[in-house]
């Protein structure tokens, strides 16, 4: 064989080999787009079948995922999509699956039980959902039975709304009020505790709207060194209920990552408030509140939307106190399913294990978001 032909052949073969290698064992950059899926993907084991399902959900290849279910005759593809993303717009509607865990629970020769833990990247943070799947053998491969959860439907009805509502008329550009404008509501920090945790210093406390008008509030904290030099400034961000109706209290929590309390001389707290239009509607009732002891200490309960308006995202803030009524911890959870009228939705707020023993009482506050108007 001539030298030139050899070179052409060598380059051609090398090209094919490299393409095949890159496709069968894709690199990290390719995995970002293709997932763990390769041309070798198969459902030859229960874990592989669930892993493929996880990849299909990650790629939002709903049709592909649905077609591989063993029990697809029991529900439609649309039911499955609604089960994943919700019938009404909620946190998961536009979320993407960041990653998933496959945890084998039980296996025999013909079936298996596997837990699929899905980590959704939502706009407010990671939301985790868990499904226990029954996997059955079908010939030479395995198929998952999807435990479909059909979302409840609200029957047609009329719900009268008679909750309080405050409207504000602000100074317009043409008004001759000089610099005068409506006064900011009076708010006060009624409790504040700095604590040191593994990831830094945490400032938590409670804020009271002591005015007779609604307030849009926020809290900023500045750590001062022992020589009274500002070290860092952080705000409560979403660890607070920003809208406070008259006489309402909200907990707040401010994180200072990578700081130690021993360096801190004092803390300067700056609450801000603004007068805003507000309504007491939608009212969310909290039922069956229960403090669960360690291990896996948590606050559980149910939220019920008493209004007719759909609450697309609810945020539960839990304040935990010790026996003497001192603030111990503030934690929160976003509810990833929308709150429909009169349909209870469970919530669970985890409490750090080292603090669980100190907690003897709690108080929960709900912040809500509805499309077309937030509260």
């Amino acid at each position, binding site marked *: 064989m001539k030298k030139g*032909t050899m070179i052409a052949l060598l380059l*051609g073969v090398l090209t094919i080999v*490299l393409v095949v290698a*890159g496709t069968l064992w894709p690199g990290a950059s390719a995995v*970002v787009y293709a997932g763990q899926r390769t041309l070798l993907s198969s459902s030859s084991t229960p874990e592989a079948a669930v892993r493929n399902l996880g990849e299909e959900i990650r790629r939002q290849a709903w049709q592909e995922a649905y077609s591989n279910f063993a029990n697809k005759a029991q529900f439609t593809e649309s039911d499955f999509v609604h089960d994943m993303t919700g019938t009404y717009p909620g946190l998961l509607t536009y979320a993407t699956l960041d990653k998933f865990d496959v945890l084998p629970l039980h296996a025999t020769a013909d079936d298996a039980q596997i837990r699929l833990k899905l980590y959704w990247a939502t*706009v407010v943070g990671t939301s985790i959902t868990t499904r226990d799947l029954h996997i059955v053998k079908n010939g030479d491969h395995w198929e998952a039975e999807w435990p479909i959860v059909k979302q409840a439907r609200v029957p047609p009805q009329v719900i009268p709304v008679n909750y309080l509502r405050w409207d504000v008329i602000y100074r317009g550009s043409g008004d001759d009020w000089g610099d005068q404008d409506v006064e900011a509501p009076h708010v006060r920090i009624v409790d504040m505790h700095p604590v040191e945790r593994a990831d830094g210093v945490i400032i938590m406390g409670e804020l009271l709207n002591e005015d007779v008008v609604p307030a849009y509030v926020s809290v900023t904290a500045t750590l001062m060194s022992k020589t009274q030099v500002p070290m860092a*400034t952080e705000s*409560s961000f979403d660890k607070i209920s920003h809208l406070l109706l008259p006489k309402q209290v909200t907990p707040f929590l401010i994180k200072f990552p990578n700081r130690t309390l021993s360096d801190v001389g004092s803390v300067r707290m700056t609450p801000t408030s*603004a007068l805003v239009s507000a309504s007491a509607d939608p009212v969310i009732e909290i039922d069956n509140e229960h403090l669960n002891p360690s291990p896996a200490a948590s606050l559980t309960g149910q939220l019920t939307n008493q209004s007719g308006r759909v609450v697309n995202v609810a945020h539960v803030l839990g304040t935990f106190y010790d026996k003497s009524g001192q603030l111990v911890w503030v934690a929160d959870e976003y509810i990833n399913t929308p709150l429909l009228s009169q349909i209870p939705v469970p919530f669970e707020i985890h409490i750090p294990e080292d603090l669980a023993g100190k907690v003897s009482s709690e108080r929960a506050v709900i912040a809500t*978001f509805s499309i077309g108007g937030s509260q």
Partner: protein
Amino acid sequence: MQNTESIAPSTRPISLSLLLMMAVVIHLPLLLMKLPLKSYDANFHIFFASHYVHHWFDPWNAKWYAGFSQTTYPPLPQQWVALLSWILGLDMAYMAVQLVAILLLVVGVYRFSLLWVSPRAASIAALASVFLGSESFLVYSAGQLGTTTAAPIYLIGLPFLYEWVRYGNWKSFLKASVLLVAAAAAHHATLLFGSFLFAVPVLALTYFDRRNGERISISAFLGRSVAIAGVVCAGIAVVLLPFWIALIHNPVTQTPIPHPSRANYILNPIWGLNYFVVPYGALILALPFIFMRGALVARLRPLLIGFWVAFMVGLGGTTPVGHLLLGRAFGVLTMERFSYWATLLALPFVGLLAVELVDRFKLRAVIGLTTLAACTCALAVGWSTYRPADASSFKVDSVADWLNRDGHDQYRYITLGFGNKISRLAIMTNAGSVDGEWNSGRTLPELNLYGAGALTSSKYFGKPGLDALRAMLTHADNYGLKWVLVRDPYYDPLLSFAGWRQVDSLEDKTIAVWSKDGVPPAMPVNAPQMPPKWQGLMWGILPFGSSILAILVLLIPGKRERKYLEERHSITEVTPMQERMAS
């Protein structure tokens, strides 16, 4: 009366003026339609140019990232846009510079191809460059002004490199040096990787080419190569000194941002279409010829190797080659530019193939090749419409007006759901933002830690993007970030729960303005990255000056160079059969 003219194809090369006219006929209407404005990066380059319009000698731009240095990107084409904008306006100045780059490519491909193939084949290669899918893709879909400007300058300079190393011609030495420095001033990646992909094959050719049956002596080859490499490196070091200082002080250490050009094109066929089929077009049909002819003809082998390496890296994550060769740079660079360079390296082969087909099949070949070229160009141009960089078409004028009035520009802003309109908005508003589109220029930790691109497109980066957005909103007070302009209600829950309130709406309520109470006015950032005045002066004078110098040295007559080229033509038209006979 009968027409007795022969219909046999001419064996003469197509004249350069005709080739340039063809490029004008194809691309001028598209540029007059401002088609590149729909691309990914055109507005980014115009934004940089708009800064040079007002601050030619001050590369610190306060409009993005709370302040960043434009010395992080070689400025040449953007400075030309800035200069021409005084006459044409920014948009048309961009189009003018892009047109010049397209015309230079015709000249560059012709001159580069002459090193490898006959004048006739070289002229056809230059004609093919007018229809090249990757060129149209970069111009109309990617908007890569820097890459498409640097490559032709580089190609024009390479024959001078050949002439210097092969014949020791000092005029060629001067021209090659100045052109290569000017190319570096236009685009840094072209300099770094083009050196290997383009220059090394040319240097190999100088060594293997025989004159009167003899090769150049090794000492002369090495001496001249080292001499010009030293001079060019020194020139680039000086001309782009602020760029190197910025790079050394702030190396790109941020978490790599995923880019679909690094995907596996087989596992993700849509990206294969986007980054392989569209840029290559009908060139895919020529691949077997390129491999065979490149391997069979000894003097074409360096070109084949250069092409093959660029081709493999351009395949992104389809092969492990890119990652193995580029290392960490693989996670920073986008791969379509390698496909672009691969197609440029393939053009001499295309010229050869076309000549052989036309000689054999006459008019049928001409019709077939013309059809394939037209389809390739049409697909690449049309791709910007079929798969636009930014599907939503909306104006940001009202947003800019809002930011510019009532003291709103005392605070910083970000947009959500604006796509690459943020460059256009930044051109029009006086307000500063903490977001931007030039990832290598950003230094804010909230943006660098998570491996996401622009905040305005946070949701498309999944968890990293949303984490970066939350981090930035958490530290809004630190940056005077008071306004969030939202065109995607997806982000509303986050803003609502994080303490932002909707205070206004624009564009028929399709854009909401959210505000945060208690944010202090934006303060200038005295970042260590801020270049001192002497660097601003260098940045304003040297890169642009290098292009002026390049124009001037090209005016120096080069009779001897033409003689060298003619001499070379006698050894370029080599078919495998002839080579076999010669041996």
